[in-house]
């Protein structure tokens, strides 16, 4: 149901939209299933209802700017969904649109979003309803199921196109590709979210582990990209692919930058700083140890020496 789009529009998605959608979904989900009363009883009989409760679908509107062939989606807001008529609440939409217009006069309603694993038939109703605001709205779908093996974002963007199926022209959803575009401010917040430590993360070991995990994933990405380059060059050497000289030149210029840090001065400075840090840690350890020792001796004196102490120093050890 989702072949590739042929409209030629390029889509740019801001991370704010993704964060908003996932935030909306998480809020609704936790409000429906408060952690204290996870329905253990509902598992047997009304499995279907429990499923819907577990994964509520949320709906909302995305806004942004369309310049020529580029569609840039900046922001989003939530909308009320009426399951009986299967439409979105229109008056609320228009009120919100007015409010946003006052603050961002350039932003237009570009489409709508929802959560789920795939686009459904009922989505077409909502899509058609929005078509009178924007002739070709976009449908952003977020898949909230966490899949650790998946490397890409679980966000898909669909456009509607008129295709002739069985002789009847019908509107169907088609996939479009998109790129993620960030502004500096967004990059800071995304970085912040990516480095969230657990709330009690006071212990040094967990902080160290979290920091190291971050470095580990970064190096793993670098590793996979170098591997791609390596396989490409190996194939070129075996003449499986024709030589692309421009690429070879770029790779050779890149490889010449290695090793990135090898001068003597770097080694000296690095070792000096390393030794300084070790010394300071050692010094701090010694200070803590000696203060602990001092306390222990005081406690020992108070505990065992009440009878014999009379001003002079007696051998009590």
């Amino acid at each position, binding site marked *: 149901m989702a072949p590739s789009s042929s409209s030629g529009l390029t889509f740019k998605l801001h991370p704010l939209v993704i964060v908003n959608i996932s935030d909306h979904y998480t809020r609704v989900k936790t409000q429906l299933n408060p952690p204290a009363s996870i329905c253990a009883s509902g598992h047997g009989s009304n499995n279907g209802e429990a499923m819907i409760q577990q994964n509520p679908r949320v709906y909302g509107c995305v806004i942004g700017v369309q310049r020529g062939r580029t569609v840039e989606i900046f922001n989003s807001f939530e909308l009320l969904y009426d399951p009986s008529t299967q439409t979105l609440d229109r008056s609320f939409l228009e009120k919100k649109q007015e409010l946003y217009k006052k603050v961002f006069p350039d932003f237009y309603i570009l489409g709508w979003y929802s959560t789920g694993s795939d686009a459904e038939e009922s989505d077409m109703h909502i899509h058609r309803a929005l078509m009178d605001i924007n002739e070709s709205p976009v449908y952003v779908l977020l898949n909230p199921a966490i899949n650790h093996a998946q490397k890409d974002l679980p966000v898909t963007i669909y456009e509607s196109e008129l295709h002739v199926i069985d002789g009847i022209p019908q509107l169907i959803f088609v996939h479009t590709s998109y790129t993620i575009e960030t502004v500096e401010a967004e990059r800071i917040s995304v970085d912040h979210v990516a480095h969230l430590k657990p709330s009690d993360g006071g212990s040094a070991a967990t902080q160290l582990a979290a920091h190291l995990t971050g470095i580990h994933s970064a*190096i793993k990405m670098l590793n996979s990209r170098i591997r791609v380059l*390596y396989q490409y060059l190996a194939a*070129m050497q075996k003449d499986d692919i024709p*030589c692309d*000289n421009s690429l070879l030149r770029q790779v050779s210029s890149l490889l*010449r930058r290695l090793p990135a840090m090898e001068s003597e001065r770097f080694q000296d400075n690095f070792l000096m700083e390393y030794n300084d840090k070790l010394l300071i840690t050692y010094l701090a350890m010694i200070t803590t140890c000696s203060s602990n020792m001092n306390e222990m001796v005081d406690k020992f004196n108070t505990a065992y020496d009440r009878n014999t102490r009379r001003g002079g120093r007696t051998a009590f050890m």
Partner: protein
Amino acid sequence: MDIEQKQAEIIDQLVKRASTCKPEALGPLIIEATSHPSLFAFSEILALPTVAQLQGTTDSVYLDVLRLFAHGTWGDYKCNASRIPQLSPDQILKLKQLTVLTLAESNKVLPYDTLMVELDVTNVRQLEDFLINECMYAGIVRGKLDQLKRCFEVPFAAGRDLRPGQLGNMLDTLSNWLNTSENLLISIQDKIKWADSMSEMDKKHRKEAEEGVEEVKKSLSMKRE
């Protein structure tokens, strides 16, 4: 990366012209290519079959010129000056730029003395002017001039055309890089496990100490009773 983009159009144009024009016209075409101020890549033109046919004919000197510009340096030109026709000032400038690129291949820190010898420049001022105007503003190298130590540090230099044997070297370097990063990944994982196990041991130790304290408190209070 941007240099490649700048060159890509020029290379396409020249390749189209070279493949369609007659062999006699290839000579002036080669001269034009080697004097073009933003063109530093010649392997595409070298790879054309019409150009390769020049070998052995009277115009084979042009082929030599092209090869010199693709792989050679100013020093090579001086040694073989008899076989190669006189170069125009544009070409001389370009050859010197390509020499700097070749030197940057082997070392990241180029002493002024070596540069002065290779480029036939007598004083430091001329050398620095050449490096700044011709190399850095053209975008083929990025680096820092260290006057106190009289050297030129080059963290980035554009790529020259590849000699046939260099592909093997590049593959070796890449595989070394891969191995190093994999080892690093493994050692980071070990460190993470170590940090976790250390914190586990610490928690256990703390718990045992507290349990000991509780026991002693209980036994003391029982003794009192």
